[in-house]
């Protein structure tokens, strides 16, 4: 009974549903304000995205003629569920995840894929030609960031495993990564992993679909792309997914490269965590948004498979040779 209650708490409050939504709303609001300030605008209120979400909930949901009703309605919900599940794997507080296994990183990689795939399948089911173009772009963007992401993932696992050999079975475990960092200092302080951290910083905005890399949802070119036919509640869930994804990616970076820090007081840790997330949001999402124009999809692919992948590869090779 107690376990059930604990699990429900994990699932619904911390680090699950409520905390995710809260952080997602705050970070995305912060992002919008920061972008506005960098463009010398006032910017929307902090809770603007929350208002957007609520408003979408109150709108009529139109199911287009060419849409497949069930898939159209439930794809976003499944995607959101998958995203919340990722948050349960992240040991954001004291290295304790609500749920942990020996394969966290791969699971997270695939759940992130699942989130995107749900978007794509939903878009596909809406029957819009714009959505078709959008999903193709989303897929290409996914192929683009997947290579550096995988390389980063491997170099981090390699680093954390390499120094305790024969602990081999737990290669992709986030808890293990956290423990390693608790013992040896955060991974970003190891110079061989700094390129990987940089690559990961580049991966975040593309994974989230933030401005210079939001080829899939280009409003002006392809009419919101994947979301072209979405209205009302499913759209609200998509928007929420987008917000929470910002938080999840920031938290993932935190766990991978800045983990292991603990002051002993949970409250202080949470505050530090929130601040780090805000900083990451600023660095990876707001700044490129304010500075760059949107890339073309070929450019995104080229950028990630050359520069970013090269950064990650450098780290992998350095780590491989024990540096």
């Amino acid at each position, binding site marked *: 009974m107690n376990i059930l209650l604990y699990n429900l708490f994990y699932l619904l409050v911390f680090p699950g549903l409520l905390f995710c939504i809260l952080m997602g709303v705050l970070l995305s609001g912060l992002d919008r304000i920061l972008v506005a300030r960098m463009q010398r605008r006032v910017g929307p*209120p902090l809770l603007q995205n929350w208002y*957007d979400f609520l*408003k979408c909930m109150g709108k009529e949901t*139109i199911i287009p003629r060419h849409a497949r009703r069930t898939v159209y309605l439930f794809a976003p919900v499944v995607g959101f569920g998958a995203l919340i599940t990722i948050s349960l794997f992240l040991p954001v507080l004291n290295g304790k995840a609500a749920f942990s296994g020996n394969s966290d990183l791969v699971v997270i990689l695939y759940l992130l894929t699942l989130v995107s795939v749900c978007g794509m399948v939903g878009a596909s089911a809406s029957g819009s030609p714009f959505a078709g173009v959008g999903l193709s772009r989303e897929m290409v963007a996914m192929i683009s960031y997947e290579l550096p992401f995988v390389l980063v993932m491997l170099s981090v696992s390699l680093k954390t495993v390499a120094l305790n050999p024969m602990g081999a079975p737990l290669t992709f475990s986030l808890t293990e990564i956290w423990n390693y960092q608790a013992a040896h200092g955060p991974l970003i302080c190891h110079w061989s992993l700094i390129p990987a951290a940089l690559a990961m910083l580049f991966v975040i905005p593309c994974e989230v679909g933030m401005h210079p890399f939001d080829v899939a949802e280009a409003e002006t070119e392809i009419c919101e792309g994947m979301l072209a036919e*979405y209205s*009302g509640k499913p759209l609200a869930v998509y928007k929420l997914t987008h917000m929470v994804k910002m938080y999840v990616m920031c938290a993932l970076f935190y766990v991978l490269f800045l983990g292991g820090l603990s002051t002993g007081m949970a409250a202080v840790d949470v505050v530090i965590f929130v601040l780090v997330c805000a900083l990451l949001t600023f660095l990876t999402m707001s700044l490129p948004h304010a500075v760059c124009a949107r890339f073309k999809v070929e450019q995104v692919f080229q950028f990630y498979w050359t520069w970013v992948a090269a950064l990650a590869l450098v780290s992998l090779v350095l780590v491989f040779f024990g540096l």
Partner: protein
Amino acid sequence: MFEKMIDKSMAKSPWIFHINAGSCNGCDIELVSVLTPRYDAERLGFRLTGTPRQADIVVVSGPVTLQSRDRLIRTLEQVPQPRVVVSLGSCPRSGNVFKGSYAIDGPLEKWTHVDVSVAGCTPKPEAIVAALAQATQILEQKRKEMRK
């Protein structure tokens, strides 16, 4: 309570979809300038969307030309309820200098109910902001009516 929150946020996050029904592009440019740092409509929650499915406020500019008429009507129908139609500039309400042309099938009132209009050729961005702000009030009202 949830419903009340939705009612309140209706006015706080109006998304705009812009239809050019044969406009000379003057009004269109002014509408975009509303989002620039100087006027910054985003602080009121405005956002330009690319699709009518996500729009709350439809802004129509231009006299309704024959070419654009069917597309205009079709697109207006695709906007989910509650929605507000704003006519931008003089053209949609009267045809302006194109009045009486064989290529015009206006005014916009003939095809849909226009909630808020802003006149001017072109209107100043502040006037557009004021019109949009008025439109959000109507939006909230419509939502409340829809709920009843």
